[in-house]
């Protein structure tokens, strides 16, 4: 068991590493490189950030990106979880769908961009589609393996207690038992989907968006603004992950605490 004292110390260690990274960055930018096009310094980036915020552009970019992301991840959840459940529950369905999934899975999401444009045009849906492709496979795979890993004894205990229909067994026994694995899959999917965002906005589906803006400022050679968007993408991605984990642990996986430290 780690004491709270130790935890506190470890937190300070983390903070000091961040400060150190900032100092190294500043020295590299201001003393060694001395060219804000090649490497903008932390103050340059801060000024650019404030400027972008004042223009009201950042919030708009964030909103547009969220629309793309929600479309993609939402569709991946709605399609991926049922497919994963069906494949994990029924061996026949697994045998039927597995070859298709395994052939499609290694195709990089970005390779779908041409068809995204042809099918959905330059709309939020085509950006969403690329994110969907990136997010759906981790969801399918983890839901599937979660269902495959449900201990037989839980299903038999359920049957003995009058839960005999497949639908009820899935809902009341297998799904809750598989939830830790499904949640892990959604976490991975959130990360992969977020990474696809920049590329998904690259081909001009909208005038705004965090990924779109990053390319826009690159074209203007305003590299300090590019760094602002890079950092924002990182921080927002991290925030999603933390919120999701907190929410799942607190509301759905409370029972796991104590089993795995």
């Amino acid at each position, binding site marked *: 068991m780690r004491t709270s004292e130790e935890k506190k110390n470890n937190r300070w260690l983390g903070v000091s590493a961040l400060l150190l990274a900032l100092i190294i960055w500043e020295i590299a930018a201001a003393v060694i490189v001395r060219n804000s096009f090649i490497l903008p310094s932390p103050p340059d980036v801060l000024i650019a950030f404030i400027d972008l915020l004042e223009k009201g552009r950042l919030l708009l970019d964030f909103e547009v990106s969220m629309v793309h992301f929600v479309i993609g991840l939402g569709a991946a959840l709605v399609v991926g979880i049922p497919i994963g459940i069906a494949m994990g529950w029924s061996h026949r369905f697994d045998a039927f769908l597995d070859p298709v999934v395994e052939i499609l899975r290694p195709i990089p999401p970005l390779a779908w961009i041409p068809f995204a444009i042809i099918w959905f045009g330059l709309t939020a849906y085509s950006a969403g589609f690329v994110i969907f492709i990136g997010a759906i496979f981790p969801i399918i795979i983890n839901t599937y393996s979660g269902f495959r890993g449900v201990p037989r004894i839980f299903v*038999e*205990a359920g*049957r*003995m207690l009058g*839960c*005999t229909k497949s639908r009820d067994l899935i809902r009341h*026994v297998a799904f*809750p*038992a598989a939830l830790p694995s499904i949640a892990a899959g959604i976490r991975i999917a959130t990360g992969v989907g977020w990474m696809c965002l920049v590329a998904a906005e690259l081909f001009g589906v909208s005038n705004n968006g965090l990924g779109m803006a990053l390319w826009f400022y690159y074209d203007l050679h305003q590299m300090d603004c590019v760094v602002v968007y890079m950092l924002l993408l990182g921080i927002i991605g991290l925030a999603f992950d933390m919120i999701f984990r907190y929410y799942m642990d607190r509301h759905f996986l409370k029972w796991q*605490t104590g089993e795995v430290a």
Partner: protein
Amino acid sequence: MGRLVIRDLTQSFKKDSGPELVALDHISLDVDDKEFVCILGPSGCGKTTLLRLIAGLDTARSGSVKLDGEEMRGPSPKIGLVFQEYSLFPWRNVMDNIAFGLEMQKKPRAERYRIAEQYLKLVGLTQFATSYPSELSGGMRQRVAVARALALDPVLLLMDEPFGALDAQTRNMLQKELLEIWEKTRKTIVFITHSVDEAVYLADRIIVLTPRPGRICKIVSIDLPRPRNRTNVEFAQVRRDILDLISSNCSVQ
């Protein structure tokens, strides 16, 4: 009522190569209503196979299982099962584990909890209602498992070495508690064990099975009054007789 009639129950498993493995060979057995029967045998003799057939979790090659004259095909709410391994749903707290079967019967929430509370009290875990299984000791978990099986008010309670994984002291305590619960609820109990001591302590009758393939070697009635004392001479004598029977592979009748 809870009268169990088993006739010519045979189970065999086919392996990919080699001959068919006979696990149970024409088992016939009558268990009276409210009777406590222990099925005793070494591991691999088909005890669990027999129990799974009674429970309706597996289908027999041939033979029949009848409960109160009704042929059993598949799991039934009239039969409760306590597993050997840890079978509580870890995502449900103690109360919701016990209420699971009632929830499946679509009983209203208030009624489910009222009944669950009653069984929680029966196994003496009232203050653990909102605990999760991972927070309980092995003995407490099996108590909850007993309460969960009883909550649907089955006429027959099957128990598959439920105390096998517990330490000796906890095991003795739970055996005593189980007898008290049995006295109160008057269920028919079929209890599987490989411990002669446990069987002699608990049972009205002990069904001794032979090692593979499982056949009934002998049925021993235990007439000792309860509560039984393990250090008692008669207790020791019965235990010795059964141990002799097992070590001689049932050749002496």
